[in-house]
């Protein structure tokens, strides 16, 4: 059985990892939005396919 402070450290570690994953997800979504925006501009301004 784990000691209480081990459990706390594990919870903290899990929380920090979740935060990092959330930031990565937010950045990926923002990048996707920018990509769709750029594609839209390219399609609207040129004779690009």
């Amino acid at each position, binding site marked *: 059985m784990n000691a209480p402070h081990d459990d706390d450290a594990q919870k903290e570690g899990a929380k920090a*990892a979740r935060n990092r*994953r959330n930031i*990565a997800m937010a950045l990926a979504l923002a990048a996707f939005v920018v*990509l769709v925006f750029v594609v839209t501009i*390219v*399609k609207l301004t040129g004779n*690009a396919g």
Partner: protein
Amino acid sequence: MPKAAATAQQAAPAPQARPALWSDYVQLLKPRVMSLVVFTALTGLVCAGEPLHPVLAAVAVFCIAVGAGAAGALNMAVESDTDALMRRTRGRPVAAGRVSRGDALTYGVLLSALAVALMGLAVNWLAAGLLAFTVVFYAWFYTIILKRSTPQNIVIGGAAGALPPVIGWAAAAGSTPLDAWLLFLIIFLWTPPHFWALSLYTSEDYAKAGIPMMPVVKGAASTRLQIFLYSLVLVPVAIAPVFTGLGGLWYAIVSMGGGLGFVFLAFRLWKSRAGDAPSEENLQKGAEGLYDVKAQTKPARNLFAFSILYLFALFAALLAEHGLKAAP
């Protein structure tokens, strides 16, 4: 219940070893496979010779890469049980218990849907349709149905890995002419000798996981012969682009020189004892005997390594010839 499924259930992923990191989600996309997919797709796109806005060309390649990665994530979600049984795959995020099956499935479905939708909206729907077909073919037909049911799994399943240059071509040209399918055929025929060479020295793992790879089902001798026969078919097909006008002088040199090397190594493998079970004599010799068994796999390792170089060289030659032609 089939034996493989029963074994698989016993080997269900362990509870989370450590919290999942973002790098686990990158690993789910099989970056090394993705790099080969990107390279062959780019070759198809450039060989098409149709002008495509650079941003849209980059988006097309990006969508193909993400689609391939998503298929990899779905594959890892579905195969976590057998992955956990094999040395080569047991460190994968789902098999090691760092990412749950559900998360990997959601991730794979979401990414493939986004990749297909973006390809359709930004480039064209033929390329998007081919991309969707490739993801479904690999993640469902190959992973769930073929892989565990027939030793021809990688022969038929190889179609998924062979489609990226056709998707690239479709993205640029909006059509898939014969030359695009010739690129498909080269990768399709290259896949069996490539994977069977690998499986000759990893067949123990496949047997343990209940996957009917050719050496497990038909034995090493039959696999070596089939590798040689496939190489005899592959090499002329790989030279064919010289005659259709797709490949130029450099491609002719690479495909003929590389082809000779491929057939030579496949012949040496056929005549070797790679993948054979250790003989009684070797078992009695102990460590020295086991070293002999390991040394016998060298022809298989050589062909496996050369096959990667050969495919890379073929596509690099095409990419260079067509890329230079298109350059201003």
